[in-house]
């Protein structure tokens, strides 16, 4: 069952230099209980996409359909309801928690606002349950964020996101500020919670090994557009878009005896302000040709494997 469908979503920002196309014509669907990974380099619009979907930012155009209901434009009251079903875990656990609230206050705040618990003892039971669920010791109930390490803070952030029993959570780089050993603990926690509560995640990250580990499907974004999307395993074993190929080849491998061939990319990501029509990756692409300056269409080159590249077929001999 499709839980979330995004159709032609756009989010533009007006800047003094022109219009910044942060998210440009993005479409995808997420099935209930699955994880969609969104990968891309910094500045590709992946966080903006997540924030636009849960209405932290107002979309410029397009459609967001959640649980069969169009929620693109909603009034305040409706927004309240939506927010109970869609939550977010932020990247930086040091910045996303209120330094003057204890762990208990942070986790209980959404419950208080929703008005689900009238009795104080019920509220305390529920916050206690949530803390157990994410693995924070109950004795830390009265601790302030500065007393906690990064991993625990991120657990508080997760408990807060889970407090209203949402169906859908946007995880915006939830582990990139954590050390590897702690990162693995948090990733396992997210997977356990998904299995237990049938949660649906949109997992935004720049870390490709993390995304492969946790996602069922993956979208690769470049300058506001999805250039390739496919089931997770297929994307890593048989990428079709030149950008995905270069991105995967750039990951430093821990296998010292099988040094893979790198596809060097020239230059850096260009500006998303007033982009020219056509493929945005063309300037850095080793296979760029004249056709690339015309707008690209997304094609299903293999079953469930979508690529936005005019030479996709020819380059992959399909």
């Amino acid at each position: 069952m499709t839980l979330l469908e995004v159709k032609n979503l756009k989010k533009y920002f007006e800047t003094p230099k022109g219009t910044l196309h942060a998210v440009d014509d993005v479409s995808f669907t997420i099935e209930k209980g699955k994880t969609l990974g969104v990968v891309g380099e910094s500045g590709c619009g992946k966080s903006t996409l997540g924030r636009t979907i849960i209405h932290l930012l107002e979309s410029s155009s397009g459609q967001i359909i959640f649980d069969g209901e169009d929620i693109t434009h909603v009034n305040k009251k409706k927004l309240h309801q939506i927010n109970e079903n869609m939550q977010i875990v932020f990247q930086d656990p040091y910045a996303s928690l209120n330094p003057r609230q204890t762990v208990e206050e942070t986790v209980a705040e959404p419950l208080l606002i929703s008005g689900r618990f009238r009795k104080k003892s019920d509220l305390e039971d529920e916050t206690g349950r949530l803390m157990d669920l994410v693995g924070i010791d109950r004795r830390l109930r009265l601790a302030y964020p500065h007393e906690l390490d990064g991993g625990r803070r991120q657990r508080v952030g997760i408990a807060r996101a889970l407090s209203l029993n949402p169906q859908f959570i946007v995880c915006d780089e939830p582990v990139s500020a954590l050390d590897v050993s702690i990162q693995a603990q948090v990733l396992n926690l997210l997977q356990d919670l998904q299995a237990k509560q049938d949660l649906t995640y949109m997992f935004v990250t720049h870390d490709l090994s993390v995304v492969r580990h946790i996602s069922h499907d993956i979208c690769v974004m470049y300058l506001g557009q999805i250039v390739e999307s496919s089931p997770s395993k297929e994307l890593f074993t048989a990428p079709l878009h030149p950008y995905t190929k270069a991105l995967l080849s750039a990951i430093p491998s821990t296998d010292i005896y099988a040094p893979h061939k790198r596809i060097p990319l020239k230059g850096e990501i260009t500006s998303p302000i007033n982009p020219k029509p056509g493929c945005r990756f063309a300037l850095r692409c080793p296979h760029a040709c004249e056709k690339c300056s015309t707008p690209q269409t997304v094609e299903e080159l293999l079953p469930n494997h979508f690529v936005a590249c005019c030479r996709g077929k020819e380059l992959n001999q399909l």
Partner: protein
Amino acid sequence: MQTTKQKETSFLSVKNLSVEYTSDDEVIHAVNHVSFDLQKGKTFGLVGETGAGKTTIAKAILRILPQPPARIKSGEIFFEGEELLGLTEEKMRKIRGNRISMIFQDPMTALNPIMRVGTQIAEAVRLHENCSRVQSVEKAIEMLEMVGIPGERQREFPHQFSGGMKQRVVIAMALACNPHLLLADEPTTALDVTIQAQVLDMINELKRKNNTSMIMITHDLGVVAQACDDVAVVYAGEIVELGTKEQIFTAPSHPYTLGLFGSLPDIHSDSQRLYPIEGLPPDPSNLPQGCSFHPRCPYATRACGDRQAALADLGDRHLCRCINLEQIQKGGKKP
């Protein structure tokens, strides 16, 4: 474990280095009895998590630790036959930025925001090489071009560059005086993978050209696999395992090293579950008795809390600090 002969032939030799930080009434043992050698032209990787003391080791070599609160409690650092910790500040200044230079982690804060990048590079050149202002600027332009930035951009300010380009400027600055030893503190952590690949390639290329030795500080085992010859795994200020890259990657032996590898999601496999290290890194002001890893160690026995193991040689100078090594290798208790 080192003979005098090795000390003389080593290009850099750190011996028994201990550094502590003092705050109000706490003493933080940041680096504890660290020893290693680095040969000319080789890259030595220091791997570990936040707060393990990696950066402190590098700063101690360059003697740029703020003292107080830091204090080098013991140790000797031999660099090209000279003992650095005993040098006067004046002599040290001649070495810093000249024979030893450092690339800092965050290119956004390592550059002076109100100075043109060319001037910043030229400053380092003028301090160490007997040359005129014009010559130093020419050298700065040459360095920028070497790292792939058009020379005419030397008149621009740091905010006009992207993150990857700023890191190149920092690298150009560090390499301007042809250092013999380069300390690279997480040089690519703040960068995207495609830019990271470019920067790593560039560092490796420049290293080959000038036969520079390097200490690469990182938490990314992938970067180590690509860039280093020898590796030391640091935990709570101690080297727990040391060996060549091949030894560490094919036969990791210390439980902490094993844990690090288990925590990494593998991009080439479909493993569904990670095996993280339980618990948290210890509080450096209150290190556990005995082995500092034993509270988190799945193989820990009672003896681990009593005594600290010495670095034992597993053969071919692959050193590991664990008293239960034999049991672990026999495939004893699994996590």
